[in-house]
């Protein structure tokens, strides 16, 4: 509901204060990454150095955790893309028994507190005698990543007229050609945006992961250990900064992709 009038001063101030509240702590992360202080969180930092970036780059535990997180996020995203798109297509293209139940089922893992999902999955794995592995983490992540892809895809399917599919078939395209030449190009940007957001969500997840990882260390679990039992604060500072940078990029890309289609990308994390 854009309008041309000037905003009231009080509104401008409140909105600006809100922005400062939202952004200042993240800005602080960047400053502390270059602080020369090693033992405490002293403000203002007594001096600045880039030495800790080098130290961090030579820490194998950080690299291992990063590698595992990237692997898990990549696989979870692919799983979420396939399942989320299939479900969205079924729910938005046809009416069938249990359709409402499925759309509720998909939001359940994010509507319920993560700890419940975590504990449930852990007991399910125990019950089915599944040993902890990368795949148990992936299954946990895919569970709540599906909804991200699903929401983006459903929104796009709703905007894509069913007549387009009819039209393609009418003109002689078989099922596969219709999918490749009409359906996929129409939902591609929504899937890409959903996939990137799912990737970011999985990359960052810690609550469910603590229950499904066993003794494997993803990057968030590494961070959690550092928060509870700090070993080398400056390294944590640098890792924190790196994580922020890594998450900004997909967000900006997702914004760019769904800009024309308005609200689909992040409104439904």
């Amino acid at each position, binding site marked *: 509901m854009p309008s041309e009038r000037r905003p009231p001063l009080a509104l401008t101030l409140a909105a600006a204060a809100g922005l400062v509240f939202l952004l200042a702590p993240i800005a602080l992360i960047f400053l502390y990454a270059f602080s020369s202080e090693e033992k405490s969180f002293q403000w203002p930092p007594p001096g600045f150095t880039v030495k800790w970036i080098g130290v961090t780059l030579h820490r194998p535990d950080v690299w291992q955790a990063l590698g595992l997180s990237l692997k898990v996020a990549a696989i979870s995203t692919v799983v979420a893309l396939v399942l989320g798109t299939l479900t969205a297509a079924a729910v938005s293209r046809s009416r069938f028994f249990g359709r409402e139940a499925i759309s509720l089922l998909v939001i359940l893992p994010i509507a319920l507190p993560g700890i419940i999902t975590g504990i449930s999955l852990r007991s399910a794995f125990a019950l089915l005698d599944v040993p902890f592995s990368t795949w148990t983490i992936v299954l946990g992540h895919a569970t709540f990543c599906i909804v991200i892809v699903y929401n983006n895809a459903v929104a796009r399917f709703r905007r894509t*007229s069913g*007549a*387009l599919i*009819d*039209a*393609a*078939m*009418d*003109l*002689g*395209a*078989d099922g596969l*050609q219709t999918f490749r*030449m*009409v359906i996929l*190009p*129409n939902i591609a940007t929504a899937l890409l945006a959903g996939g990137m957001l799912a990737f970011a969500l999985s990359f960052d997840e810690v609550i469910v992961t603590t229950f499904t990882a066993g003794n494997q260390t993803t990057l968030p679990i590494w961070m959690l250990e550092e928060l509870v039992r700090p070993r080398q604060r400056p390294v944590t500072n640098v890792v924190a900064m790196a994580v922020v940078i890594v998450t900004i990029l997909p967000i900006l890309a997702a914004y760019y992709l769904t800009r024309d289609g308005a609200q689909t990308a992040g409104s439904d994390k």
Partner: protein
Amino acid sequence: MTDAVTFRGVSRHFGDVRAVDRVDLAIRDGEFFAMLGPSGSGKTTCLRLIAGFEQPTAGEIEIFGTSARGVPPYLRNVNTVFQNYALFPHMNVRDNVAFGLRVRGMGRRERHAAAEEALALVELSGFGARRAGELSGGQRQRVALARALINRPRVVLLDEPLGALDLKLREQMQEELRALQARLGLTFVLVTHDQDEALSLADRVAVFAEGRIRQLGTPAQIYRRPASRFVADFVGSSNVIPAEVAGIGAPGQWASLRPEDIRLDPAGQAARVTGRFFHGRVTKLTLELRGQRLSALIPAQQAAPEAGAEVRIAWSPEHLHLLEAEA
């Protein structure tokens, strides 16, 4: 000669709803056929049955003598101009038009040339590089037409093709459609709820209601000799009056009388004018005659009585048409 499309006892039910109910129909090769009816009368479902988007619940459809049972839309040599056109938004005009050739594996250069030719046919030469979103309603309509014609289908289906256009454009497109059909000699099947459109374009018209064909005939037959009250009511706003008032048939029967066939006549029956509406070429009067409401159209050059006036009206007996009892 084989008929283009044949329906034999075709029904399509959606749960308890009988969208199409035991329809028999033969559309001739090369004719312009219209399916006319209110929304929900089954005409669009019939079109979708021919295109292959729906399969009949019962009965048999043949296209040029070949059974269409179980044949998916993409194996039918039948193309559709969709309501609201359904142009692919991620393609430009040329790729939209060439789509049918592309899925059949024609090379890029060849199909682009063919698309240009098809665009010329609908007077849109040079629009190939534009996006569908940049076109006006009338231009989109032409693109949709070119896209449906490029495959050289045996039957062209048109689903309310002019519904989204304004009046002037609609009349122009009607002329063009008619000319195009005559030139190509293809079988056109038009679905519409607009009686003027059906009557002015088609060689033959089928009037649908509640999943069945109520009357099938030439436009003149449908207009002049409606078979039932429903057809008389729906096709042009005819007066439907009891036989006693009309002066023909037996009590309990009904007759139709066109508003333009009622004239002011000092020797006629007494009626009261309840309203007068100026329509340009004609003036429409609403009348009350022995408790019956009638409407009459009076040519503009004739002086029309004001509301509340007592007038005398008459009609020639040959304009009365006795209706069959409702099924």
